[in-house]
């Protein structure tokens, strides 16, 4: 087991899935507990991984490798570094919580939990795989359970939401497949991501296709693939719909982890394999990030459906991460060699990914709590809930404050880091983006005011308070949010070395370019 820790983390949910499918379908409690056990074991393993992780290096660890299809050089390779570690832990936490969030599902329980566990394996597999083919297979494996989870257990428009999600994502992934194949053939027919990281840049240098830089073409193909997942404006239109229609736990996972996959892919693939093009695209990325921030915030402001508001807030929040990622070029010589700014930006971006994972998960769970009681999500339909559900209101206040970036909560730290990093290179963009924070505060506070303060809506006078199971799902996330808001250092220590490696890759290319 020592050496196969990563494999266990990837495959435990599948074992759980098989176990779930073997249970007769009327034993719904057994099914739920089996799923919870699988997710729980995965979480324990993820924590073991956290404990075993070597903080002193930014390279891949716990490396596993096995032959798969020798004739194509496809291998089964797993490894973890500071970028994937927080994402894996986040996934394990959110799935464990997600199982309990879904406790009240009563339609086709067996299928639901089996698909949830399959989704789990797909996601963790993407984070851990170091073989591009494996990466792609896991990437696609996620689509099927997502389609069913939204399409079968979702809201009234679920079918449309599910197919839209599927089509959008598939467009991205087929473009990605072409880019992967192009990399495969330029890097000596290998899918080994580490080898591609080392050889892609030199092999593609100077290659042009139809007058365009091959590197840029591949970069853009990959970018579109990942941007649809993030989602980056203008590829975001699937997201609000999917979020609104999905059942609570799926929304939690969608916002908490699936969106991170896009950002993860950008860092793992675009940044690490084709760093040259980062220089060329960073400006555009910062602008796209800015659009995400402002557009997401404005849309959120206009919503009357609380779930849709939270969905648009995700677009808004991922914008900060994009701006932070773009900041990596600050470290280049032509930009003054401000290594600290690049570090702040990149660390901030990954931290923002993690924080958004916990905060948006909290928000969606809380939305689910009120929806289960009131059976609607219209912000204007509530009012004065604070007096009927004081504990619930308090937690919502905490989540909203975390979402709007209140200092001493984790969201503030990561947003501030993104801005700090980006400021030296993208001054104007950062200044405008800070306005986004203002809008951000506006939509959360306004929604809070309408729902929880003011006249008590008589209809909801007797709503039951948040219950123990729901608190159980919320409290760990709230604790993380507060803890990292006050003391973010442990998190940054885990990711720091790997971020330095990525910055070095980008900078090495950049200084070369400036010499030439």
């Amino acid at each position, binding site marked *: 087991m020592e050496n196969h820790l990563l494999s266990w983390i990837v495959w435990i949910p599948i074992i759980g899935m098989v176990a779930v499918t073997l249970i007769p379908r009327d034993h719904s409690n057994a099914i739920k507990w089996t799923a919870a056990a699988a997710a729980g074991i995965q979480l324990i393993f993820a924590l073991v991984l956290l404990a075993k992780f070597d903080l002193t290096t930014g390279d891949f660890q716990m490396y596993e490798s096995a032959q798969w299809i020798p004739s194509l050089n496809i291998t089964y390779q797993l490894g973890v570094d500071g970028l994937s570690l927080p994402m894996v832990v986040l996934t394990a936490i959110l799935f464990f919580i997600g199982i309990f969030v879904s406790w009240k599902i009563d339609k086709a329980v067996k299928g639901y939990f089996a698909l949830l566990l399959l989704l789990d394996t797909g996601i963790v597999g993407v984070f851990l795989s170091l073989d591009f083919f494996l990466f792609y297979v896991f990437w696609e494996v996620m689509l099927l359970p997502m389609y069913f989870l939204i399409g079968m257990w979702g809201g009234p428009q679920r079918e449309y939401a599910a197919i839209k999600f599927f089509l959008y994502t598939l467009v991205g992934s087929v473009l990605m*497949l072409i880019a992967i194949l192009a990399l495969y053939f330029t890097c000596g027919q290998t899918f080994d991501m580490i080898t591609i990281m080392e050889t892609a840049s030199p092999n593609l240098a100077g290659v042009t296709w139809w007058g365009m830089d091959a590197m840029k073409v591949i970069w853009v193909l990959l970018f579109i693939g990942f941007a649809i997942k993030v989602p980056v404006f203008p590829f975001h239109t699937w997201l609000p719909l999917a979020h609104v229609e999905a059942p609570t736990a799926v929304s939690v996972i969608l916002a908490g982890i699936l969106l991170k996959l896009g950002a993860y892919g950008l860092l793992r693939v675009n940044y690490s394999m084709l760093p040259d093009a980062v220089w060329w695209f960073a400006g555009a990325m910062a602008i796209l990030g800015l659009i995400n921030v402002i557009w997401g915030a404005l849309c959120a402001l206009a919503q009357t459906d609380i779930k849709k508001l939270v969905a648009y807030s995700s677009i808004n929040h991922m914008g900060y991460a994009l701006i932070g990622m773009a900041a990596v070029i600050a470290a280049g010589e032509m930009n003054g060699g401000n290594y600290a700014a690049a570090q702040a930006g990149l660390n901030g971006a990954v931290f923002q990914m993690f924080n958004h994972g916990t905060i948006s998960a909290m928000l969606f769970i809380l939305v689910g709590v009120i929806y289960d009681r009131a059976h609607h999500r219209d912000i204007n339909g509530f009012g004065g809930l604070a007096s009927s559900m004081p504990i619930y209101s308090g937690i919502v206040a905490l989540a909203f404050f975390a979402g709007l970036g209140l200092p001493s909560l984790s969201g503030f730290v990561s947003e501030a880091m993104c801005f700090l990093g980006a400021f030296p290179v993208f001054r104007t963009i950062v200044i405008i983006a800070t306005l986004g924070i203002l809008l951000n505060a506006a939509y959360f506070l306004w929604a809070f005011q309408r729902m929880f303060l003011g006249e008590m809506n008589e209809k909801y006078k007797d709503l039951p308070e948040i219950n123990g199971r729901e608190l159980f799902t919320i409290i760990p996330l709230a604790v993380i949010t507060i803890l990292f808001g006050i003391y973010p250092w442990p998190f940054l220590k885990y990711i720091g070395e790997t971020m330095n490696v990525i910055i070095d890759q980008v900078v090495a290319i950049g200084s070369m370019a400036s010499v030439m």
Partner: protein
Amino acid sequence: MSNLQSLYYYWPELILTVTILAGIIADLFYAPKDSGKTMYWILGGLILTAFALKLAADSPVATLFMGSIALDPFAWFFKMLIIAATVIVMLMSSKSTELLNYRVGEYYVLMGIMVFGMFLMVSSIDMIMVYLAIEIVSIMSFVLAGYLKHDLSSNEASLKYVIYGAFSSGIMLYGFSILFGLTGTTKLFEIGPALAAMDSSGNFAIMLSAVFILAGFGYKISAVPFHFWTPDVYQGSPTPITAYLSVAPKAAGFAVLIRFFSAVFGSNNSVMAGLVPVSDVLPWPHILAVVAVITMTLGNLVAIQQESVKRMLAYSSIAHAGYMLMGLPMMSSEGIGAVMLYLVMYLFMNLGAFFIVMYVQTKKDGETFDAFSGLGWEMPLVGIAMTVFMFSLTGIPPTAGFIGKYYLFAAVIKAGPTFYWLAFAGAINSVISLYYYIRVIRHMYLIGERSESIHVPAMMTSILILALAIPTVVLGVYWTPVADWVSNSLVFAFPAM
């Protein structure tokens, strides 16, 4: 090799011939309601033939019957594929209710003859043989498509098939005659050098014959613009025959297309090393690429609009012919290998999809999307299997269809930037196809009431469904044996000159 010597290497086909004759004779002794038992004769004969082929696997690469039949791993590969498809379709047919009202002895015998024709198709290296083989297959197909005598749409299918078939084989024959006129020989491998030795005055004639011949082959694999027969024939034919037509003759069509064009228009010593003589006259690879893109796009776009799942699958099979054509313009062994690998994957997923359509026809009395509503709840096995087939046809990992597409894309991209647009077109088409494939899944699970009672298909049906669904998944995860088989089969017979 002389005719007598050749017979020694021809015994798998001889077993097949004896099987067909035995089937005809046996059928005479069955009462009409028992005539289905003829199937066992043919089935047994096919299995014997497969064994014979297996034993003959290490026979030398040679040409038989004075240079008119090739004995090579390439043909061997397709023969095995054809037998597999036929066995599956025969088992499917035995479960079909459409055929219940008819005497089905000849049905199985005709399929046996068709197998023989396809064996000839994949191995003939003489224009006359090519033509005869294609005609054997076509005429049997006409009869089988119209087998439901009392069903008007089946009659229509047969008649349309005959008319289109006659037309396109006539055109193809005209193309052959031009080639014969230019070179004075019918042997494919003599035509190539003869053409290469000609001056440019014959260019127009070569071009004309190439286009005419392509029309004939294009009809066989239902490539646009020679596809017009496909939807109506596929819809009207008995469902097992539709499944059969969409796989076996198509595979044989690809085999003959590859062999013919590589031998005649390719350079002689290495297959597909480049279509030397003709590519000067015509931008040949680009024409094939454009045909591929138009075929897949049209197939997909029209499939979206269908209300009948069977007809949707007919258009989807046009689209799949388009995907497979993507492997040919590069003229590389990777490309051909990708087509062959795709055919293996396609065999399982497409036959599986058609089998489930047939099963739903018998249970729900319809083949429209509505007939599939709620099916996933009512028949979990059928629903899950159909989901697997649909995802595989879309090309989503981890299914066989993805691996097939992967090889095709890889072959295209390996050939360099010239054909990148082709890979893009294929990729975008995969996304379009998702829309209609997933519609089936949507009907099975998302629309329709959840039923509390579960229907489990009969034993044989379940086994057959699993026999098709399990490989569709397993080959998506581990396909080394198939890939090895394909790469070992890329050996072509050439007559010593």
